[in-house]
């Protein structure tokens, strides 16, 4: 299939060369050890750099939506603004609040960051550019990403602050509700793909993305996933947990310095994670646009490396998320919960059955033409 195309700029060329070089010069144990350490370092570097890029992009795009200029002082077009912000947040005092539950207060950022790093590791950024590729990938992602809410609840409860408490409770109700819809929307696509492994899922979408494969049913699942993913990250019209005009900052009111920075980091990365899972499951992930039979066209598309395709698709989804965020007013908590429990969840349950019928009757597509 696609292995036969020439892929000059893929990362696999670099990694296989590195692997061979390490194994030649070092004993087996140390070669593996160094490779594992490299995976960790690259992952953390990508995590931090992506967060900084995302924060800059978000601020700039937001500024354009609101007819402002946005950051423009630090570096050309303000591109070093987030670097300066990171340095600033690193040298800010971490204030000790004397009424908090100390243990839980310090444990909360761990849950947030570890949950989002674990999810981050399962994202396929490109061909073979994925840290953990479990055969239960989709399930793993839904499982570990929901650990983050424990951090939010701990932060709200341990702060001993009414604003934090209300913010955490709202966030908890919102997250667990929309977690269901996101899970069911992904499950619909699992029914279509017949596998939970991300790499297999992407290979199944070589000639036709999942969003077209399952006709209207996939489209419904895609829209539901975008809405619920948006709500899970506490953004846009669903930002009541940290509604700054009513709750100062919600569950992280009491956090200062880098501890606050961790919550901020996790929030932005979660936005990226939701967009990249949507791109992987619905829009073919890193797989370039291919049309079966058009060999020359496919080869041309493969000259563009797979990670560029991935970040392109994710970028479009992130832009969509920002567009929604700055276009709608904030919902009330009862409207929020009604949307989930009275509309999205029943639609989702029916949608799964429709998808099963589509799959069993063989109406799904495998290539577009």
């Amino acid at each position, binding site marked *: 299939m696609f292995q036969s195309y020439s892929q000059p700029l893929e990362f696999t060329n670099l990694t296989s060369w590195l692997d061979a070089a390490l194994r030649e010069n070092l004993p087996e144990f140390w070669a593996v050890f160094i490779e*594992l350490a490299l*995976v*960790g*370092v690259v*992952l*953390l570097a990508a*995590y*931090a750099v992506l967060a900084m890029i995302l924060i800059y992009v978000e601020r700039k795009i937001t500024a354009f939506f609101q007819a402002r200029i946005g950051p423009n002082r630090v570096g050309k077009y303000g591109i070093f603004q987030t670097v300066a912000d990171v340095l600033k947040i*690193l*040298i*800010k*005092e*971490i*204030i000790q609040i*004397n*009424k908090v539950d100390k243990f839980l207060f310090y444990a909360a950022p*761990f849950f947030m*960051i*570890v949950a*989002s*790093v*674990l999810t*981050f*590791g399962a994202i396929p950024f490109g061909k073979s550019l994925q840290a*953990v*590729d*479990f055969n239960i990938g989709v*399930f793993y992602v839904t499982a570990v990403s929901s650990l983050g809410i424990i951090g939010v609840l701990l932060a709200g*409860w341990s702060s*001993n*602050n*009414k*604003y934090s*408490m209300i913010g955490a409770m709202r966030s*908890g109700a919102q997250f667990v*509700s929309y*977690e*269901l819809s996101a*899970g*069911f929307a992904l*499950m619909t696509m699992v*029914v279509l793909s017949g*596998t939970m492994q991300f790499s297999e899922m992407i290979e199944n979408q070589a000639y036709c993305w999942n969003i077209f494969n399952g006709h209207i049913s996939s489209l419904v699942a895609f829209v539901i996933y975008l809405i619920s993913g948006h709500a899970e990250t506490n953004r846009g019209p669903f930002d009541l947990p940290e509604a700054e005009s009513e709750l*100062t900052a919600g569950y992280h009111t*009491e956090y200062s*310095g*880098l501890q606050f*920075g*961790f919550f901020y980091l996790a929030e932005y990365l979660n936005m990226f994670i939701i967009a990249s899972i949507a791109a992987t499951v619905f829009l073919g992930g890193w797989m370039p646009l291919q049309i079966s039979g058009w060999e020359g066209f496919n080869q041309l598309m493969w000259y563009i490396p797979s990670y560029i395709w991935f970040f392109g698709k994710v970028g479009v989804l992130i832009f969509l998320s920002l567009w929604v965020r700055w276009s709608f007013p904030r919902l009330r*908590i009862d409207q929020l919960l*009604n949307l989930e*429990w*009275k509309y999205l*969840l*029943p639609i989702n*349950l029916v949608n*799964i059955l429709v998808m*099963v019928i589509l*799959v*069993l009757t063989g109406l799904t597509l495998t290539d577009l033409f």
Partner: protein
Amino acid sequence: MSNLSLFLVVFLSGVILVVGGLGLAILISPKSFNPQKGEPYECGIPTHGTSWMQFKAGYYLYAILYLMFDVEAIFLFPWATIVRELGVSGLTSILFFLLILGLGLAYAWRKGVLKWK
């Protein structure tokens, strides 16, 4: 490299990010003491009592409903992967499962659990 060792590496790198970041911040950040600073921030007004109190039951009801559907999701994911091989019998058996859960949701809806008071 097995998936498990890679998973451990990813987990450890998450922990190291938090520990390392906090350690560095504690080392280089300034420290000053002021009794006012230790107070919870509630917009400058002195706080009344503790915040660890009884809370609105509505959130709890939604959590229980969530539990019901989330456990269902655990059963449905393995079914979803092999539904092609199972064929029609797979569809009919899960149909009853979903029907009973749907009835549960309908009951909760009828009882007014989904109404925010």
